[in-house]
């Protein structure tokens, strides 16, 4: 018991180290002007997305068919779409979809990757070898082709209305989310590989560290080992990696919605709006311009922020 307490105390003394890493990172991040601008835009987008109900001048399904393709005017600053719905309002609500894809996509791929990487790294040996070979193989699977197949599968198999069954539950959930559920799952399934590899490598290296030896010596359980030692150490690199992937997730959502495998209408998504807009580009340029601007600014902001986060956590690698 005495031994364990000492180790715990040792752990506590070690603990400030990661915290100071965080503080350093934050300090570096704040000094990075581009990252601040990016962060500010992302923050505003989050506010806009959350407060869409109050900020948007109209609802995203609200409008009269009489007003279809209305040119921009004082009551509809960006004009109206083919259903007479306010473009500005739909852009504002559309931020929800893009940001959800960004964060939930990052979260699902993070969770899958972390679990897979931890399991692989901890079990080690043949299991680890097999699991990592599988990751290598999946890296050869063309992501876009896989995600198209997956989305067609999800959209078709789960578009039934069957109350009471699991299928029915999932399809109901997806419908109530405007078709976003399966986008999240699709992104998660196709984007966890890098994270798994990273986590597994980190787990292996952390496992060899002295304090882990110590923790093992006193018989600390594996879960405890993971949560106390591995997580704090791998969180930084994991966040960096996810931050850099976020623009990719936003693009996936836009891509899927653009080819008609994304959100269900009338849920507004910038990708879907781009698709609707570009068909009529020659007549109504505003319908393609604004979603394009919105998506570009968002990607711009996330790219800057991602760069900043990476530089902050890993100052040697100034890219």
């Amino acid at each position, binding site marked *: 018991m005495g031994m364990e307490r000492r180790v715990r105390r040792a752990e506590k003394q070690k603990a400030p180290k990661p915290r100071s890493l965080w503080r350093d990172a934050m300090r570096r991040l704040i000094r990075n002007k581009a990252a601040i601008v990016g962060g500010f835009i992302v923050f505003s987008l989050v506010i806009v997305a959350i407060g869409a109900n109050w900020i948007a001048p109209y609802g995203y399904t609200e409008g009269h*068919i*009489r007003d*279809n*393709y209305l040119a921009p005017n004082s009551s509809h600053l960006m004009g109206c779409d*083919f*259903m*007479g719905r306010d473009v500005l309002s739909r852009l504002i609500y559309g931020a929800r979809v893009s940001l959800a894809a960004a964060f939930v996509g990052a979260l699902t791929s993070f969770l899958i990757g972390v679990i897979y990487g931890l399991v692989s790294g901890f079990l080690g040996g043949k299991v680890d070898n097999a699991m990592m070979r599988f990751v290598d193989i999946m890296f050869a699977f063309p992501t876009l082709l896989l995600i198209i197949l997956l989305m*067609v599968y999800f*959209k*078709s198999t789960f*578009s*039934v*209305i069957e109350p009471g069954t699991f299928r029915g539950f999932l399809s109901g959930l997806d*419908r109530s989310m405007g078709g976003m559920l399966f986008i999240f799952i699709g992104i998660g399934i196709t984007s966890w590989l890098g994270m798994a590899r990273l986590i597994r490598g980190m787990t292996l290296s952390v496992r060899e560290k002295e304090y882990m030896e110590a923790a093992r010596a006193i018989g600390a359980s594996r879960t405890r080992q993971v949560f106390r030692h591995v997580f704090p150490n791998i969180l930084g690199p994991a966040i960096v990696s996810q931050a850099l992937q976020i623009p990719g997730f936003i693009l996936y959502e836009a891509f899927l919605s653009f080819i*008609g*495998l994304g959100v*269900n*209408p*009338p849920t507004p998504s910038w990708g879907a709006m781009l*698709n*609707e807009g*570009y*068909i*009529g*580009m*020659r*007549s*109504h340029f505003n319908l393609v311009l604004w979603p394009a601007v919105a998506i570009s600014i968002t990607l711009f902001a996330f790219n800057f922020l991602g760069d900043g986060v990476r530089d902050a956590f890993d100052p040697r690698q100034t890219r």
Partner: protein
Amino acid sequence: MKKIWLLGLIFTLIVGVMAFGQVKTLYWNLGTEPPSLDPNISTDTTSIQVEQALFLGLTDFDDETMAVVPELATHWEASEDGLTWTFYMRDDAIWTDGTPVTAHQVEYSVKRTLDPATGSSYAYVLWIIDGAKEFNNEEGGTADGVGVKAVDDYTVQFTLNQPAGYFPSIAGMWVCRPLPVSVVEKYGDAWTEAENIVTNGPYELGEWVHEDHMILYKSATYYDVANVKIDQIYCYMIEEASTAMTMYEAGNLDSTSPPLEDMDRVKAVPVLSKELYIAPDLCTYYYGFNNEKPPFDNPLVRKAFASAIDRQSLIDYVLKGGQKPAQTFTCPGIFGHVDGVAEGIGYPYNPEAAKQFLADAGYPNGEGFPEVTLMHNTSEGHSKIAQFVAQSFMDTLNVKVNIVNQEWKVYLATCREDAPQIYRMGWCADYPDANNWVNEVFNSKSGSNYANYNNPAYDALVEQAAKETDPAVRLDLYKQAETLLCDTDCAIAPIYFYTIVNLTKPYVVRTYAPLGGEHWEQWDILPH
């Protein structure tokens, strides 16, 4: 030897060009790669369009009157009982390899279509021929048992298993067109490639770069080549209507269908509005109700929904192509069409009546009405219509409507297995007779009857009409059938009759083929 021949050809071409000015080329958009140029196999409009130019049928349709007119067959006759049809073919039609077009090739083509090994999707339209179904379904029938026979080189005889007044239009369909037997046998599935194919129509296949373009040349062996004015047709395969529209405006295409999004501008810009052509097409767009799914098993509910669709506003604000509101199923221009608006058959937009119907069904002001699922296949255009119609339902009937879309193949499977309460579907004519509509779609035994409409009286009417030969009696039978389908039972809600919406450059002199298969051989291009 071959080189000399080629030199000769080039010489002729140069002389031709010098004599008549430039080579007349039509730049056309097929919209997609033709899945197959094998007439026995094709089912889609793109393939059929090209086949129309490459292969001659026994009969053809007149673009104006939609009457069956002679093509390879100069005339034909039916026996007293209407079961035996004899077609007398012209003897001056030849293939591009110089061999004559004969009745034996028609017989070969019909039997090849029916051969189960061919795997022809449209084989079923020939099941009215005696022994055809048995051969096609491998129910003990043989090729020899099929009721088609070349009596001599230029006479072909069909024996049917039931009288069918519309048979001459079937005989002209692509599945019956004579084929170059030796070429088909020699190359198998690849016989339709540009380097192998032998044709007999006004145009021949010069070049086929898959997924990219196709060039058709005026065929020197066509029997009426003297009257073909356009020398070559350059076919693009552009899927996006907006890209095609852009190319049309840039002068790269001579004709296109403008996307909906551009309709306001097309109508507003003087140059474009002069090039715009709108004419009735032979298709109907409808929303079907699953007649077995509560609460849509109640005719009053169906009537309420059918009355709640503001068809004219849909056309004015969403479709913008001058479509006609529909209250009955068979579209105008088809024998057996009933003018529902004039005769008061079917349900026009009437919000008050709609509310009343719903109240009569036990749901005053939509109270207690369950959520409704309205399903369509994934597509920009259908989505717009669905959103509009759903809004109509919600505003008028105060019910909650969920719009669900499914990718095409899945959607078809869903409709076939268990259609949703409301589903969207369209139907286009294969031949201009109501049998192709009311019988082939909503007969309770039909595979396309996704509405699960089942009324024995209706089945009896349409089956009787198919066998009947007196046109006046048939018309009356079809009117009764439409009344049951769209009024008394209100099994479906017809929405609108399609129109052809087309932009064509002013220097193209053209016709419009409502049944598909444009007659390029009748067109011309003026100097410009």
